[in-house]
């Protein structure tokens, strides 16, 4: 499985990437939506993109909208990972095409649970099925 971590904070990219690597993902990183889109345009493929909302140049909502426009990248599962926690923001992101939404701060267990919900990890006994 390959994951793209999109966040303008190197710190947060490393935190998310470390958790995903522990779960067996290969990681690529981008510091904003435009850089992430460029990676997709270059032909790299990903099973998952973890996307921050507030970033310079292109924010996460715009990135999600662009990925969902057309059919080129339909296979990518998109998860917002953001401090934007108001209900209306969650609704906007899901309407734009995000599959899941994880609010910062989050624990490694919370990220793993979301991936299980998305079917990107096998469910474990006692965990989220």
């Amino acid at each position: 499985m390959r994951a793209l971590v999109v966040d303008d904070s190197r710190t947060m990219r490393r935190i998310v990437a470390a958790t995903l690597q522990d779960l067996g993902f290969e990681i690529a990183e981008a510091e904003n939506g435009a850089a992430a889109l460029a990676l997709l345009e270059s032909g790299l493929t990903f099973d998952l993109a973890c996307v921050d909302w507030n970033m310079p140049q292109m924010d996460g909502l715009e990135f999600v909208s662009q990925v969902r426009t057309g059919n080129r990248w339909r296979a990518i599962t998109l998860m917002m990972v953001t401090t934007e926690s108001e209900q209306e923001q969650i609704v906007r992101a899901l309407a734009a095409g995000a599959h899941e939404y994880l609010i910062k701060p989050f624990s490694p267990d919370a990220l793993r649970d979301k991936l299980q919900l998305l079917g990107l990890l096998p469910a474990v006994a006692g965990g989220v099925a």
Partner: protein
Amino acid sequence: MDAPVAEGEVLAIAAQIFAALVDGEEGRLVPWPAPQPEPEHDVAAWVDVAGPWAGRASLETSSDAAADLARALLGLAPGAPVPDDEVADALGELANVLGGNVKALLPHYGALGLPRVAGALPGDDEGRAVRRVPLAWHGHSLVLTVWERSPLAGAADGGEVR
């Protein structure tokens, strides 16, 4: 306008952030022991909120504490070298998460700015502290402050965007 967030809410947000991202467990971030004077702070990180309620969430601490926070966030060993730009990035992200969660408590939607980091908070006259929460983390002093600003105030000058 009354302060939109209570001191206990700021403390709860901070405790949640540190337990999830910094320490991996609860109880490491505690109120500053009041009679003890707070040391000087030489690093500040903040994010602005724009909207019907305009404000700012800030974190002030010492350079040593900022470096220890960066090490903790990045999973580095105590005393491991950490470049200044990574310290600034880590502190900015903490301010970002703090600001985003404070914003969620507001009665109206607000837009979150990008985090900024500098040696001190901007010296503008447009804001007043409505909540100031002094905290201790592994013996370091941290101060979290929620500021109320004029809705007409723009993003403050000063500081480096991470």
